């Protein structure tokens, strides 16, 4: 297997995640797109780990996984708080900082 096939797959998934973050309005969908990007990063880490024959790639992927889980927990709490205060989960409605 080529190293590049995994790296290119990661790049395509990352690009899709970026598109999602830029174009989605619903807060939960933006969080999902961020997860997509983190999954793409994980594929890169594991592919480089397998390539170099060390376990460092796997260990780093595990750390990324942990941080992704923590991020989703806090992120959804924030989404819930936005929904409770603004009665909307639309990111375009979160403009209270506008003068």
């Amino acid at each position, binding site marked *: 297997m080529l190293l590049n096939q995994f790296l290119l797959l990661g790049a395509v998934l990352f690009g899709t995640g970026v598109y999602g973050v830029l174009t989605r309005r619903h807060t939960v969908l933006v969080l999902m797109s961020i997860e997509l990007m983190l999954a793409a990063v994980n*594929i890169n880490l594991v592919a480089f780990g397998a390539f170099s024959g060390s376990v460092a790639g796997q260990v780093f992927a595990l750390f990324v996984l942990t941080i992704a889980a923590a991020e989703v927990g806090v992120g959804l709490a924030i989404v819930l708080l936005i929904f409770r205060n603004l009665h909307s989960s639309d990111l375009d409605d979160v403009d209270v900082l506008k003068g």
Partner: protein
Amino acid sequence: MIAQNVVFGVLAAAMVLSAIGVVTTKNVVHAALYLVVVLAGGAGQFLLLGQEFVAWVQVLVYIGAVIVLFLFGIMLTRAPMQPKESLDNDLKWPGLVVAVALVGILGALLVDAFEDTEIELEAPTRTIEVTDAVFRTYIIPFEVVGILLLAALIGAVVLARKD
């Protein structure tokens, strides 16, 4: 080698199509289910690379916990199942341009840098090697991640609490 490449191709195609589904579908629950396919495909790729431990952790943590959290989030924010208005904002074309440019630049760089470097796989990595590394070499990052999880747990409870 050929069998591995066929499996890679099938998984990669499913992952890319589902990823596009995540960012384009009009139903929020479907987006979460498409995300399951992407993450399961990722776990399959890890198995293909002989990295079993992280593959099963991905299944347990991502598909088991994170997706359920997302479904709870969808439920609690009363996301529209059949939305009348679009879930996208009006940045569709600029977003597409940015994403395609990013993939193009990354792809060109990767093809230039790694051309046809092969991954030599002798045997799958054993779990004992990974856990040894986590509890010896990476013990301090491991503890820090533990504290981070605790902080995230407390933070989420404090944020979401009603009073």
